[in-house]
């Protein structure tokens, strides 16, 4: 799994946020569109696309998209 691929998949879960806002250093919880449902959607995406089960706690611990990517990578 590459970081670029992960950022693309992450961005695909959002309808109203411009793609350019999704970078490795993006603080995803600061995105206006971020919500409880986004949290659930990201957990589902990670499970489906990368076969890794993450928890709400993993999202809480992550600030940037890259932080979350690193947590997922450690679980592969």
């Amino acid at each position, binding site marked *: 799994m590459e970081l670029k691929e992960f950022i693309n998949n992450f961005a695909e879960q959002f309808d109203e946020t411009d793609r350019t806002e999704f970078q490795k250093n993006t603080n995803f919880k600061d995105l206006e569109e971020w919500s409880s449902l986004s949290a*659930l959607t990201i957990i589902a995406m990670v499970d489906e696309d990368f076969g890794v089960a993450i*928890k709400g706690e993993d999202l809480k611990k992550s600030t940037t998209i890259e932080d979350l990517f690193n947590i997922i990578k450690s679980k592969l």
Partner: protein
Amino acid sequence: MELSKYGVKLKRLTKDKIELVRNWRNDPKISQFMEYREYITPEMQENWFKKIDNENNFFFIIEFEGNDIGLINIKDVDYDKKEGEAGIFIYNSDFLNSTISFQSVLNMFDFCFGDLRLNTIIAHILKDNIRAIKYNTALGFKKVPTKKEVYNQLYTLNNEDYEKNKKNILKLLNL
């Protein structure tokens, strides 16, 4: 009364906590999503508590990891119609937009459909609160069609739709 499930504890609202709830409720970050947005005085809050401290209304403080973080409720329970109206807000910013709200809702809805034996849970959602509409839809709520477009829209959830969606959500939450 306490409901402990799915990693969260719901504690029935008691009088000693109504000032905490009043402060949360008066904060614009919460009141902006409410139909009633005027300032709530201590006296108004006491009167409100007298009206809801009964078996037709269940308001719970959400406790997570020892912190009181928000409020969830089933109100106006009609035991003949077997329905009640749900509501939730998370005040603590650390847990806002996290999976905690889903854990809290599943905990309370199990109580509503199980213990209270309700058939339907209703929710009123302001038309422009897109976030809440998406959230409720994920839980299985469906919008009740109206002839005219209204600002405060009615959504309903039945037990069957709830169980289907709950199963998926629990799987995602690893619970």
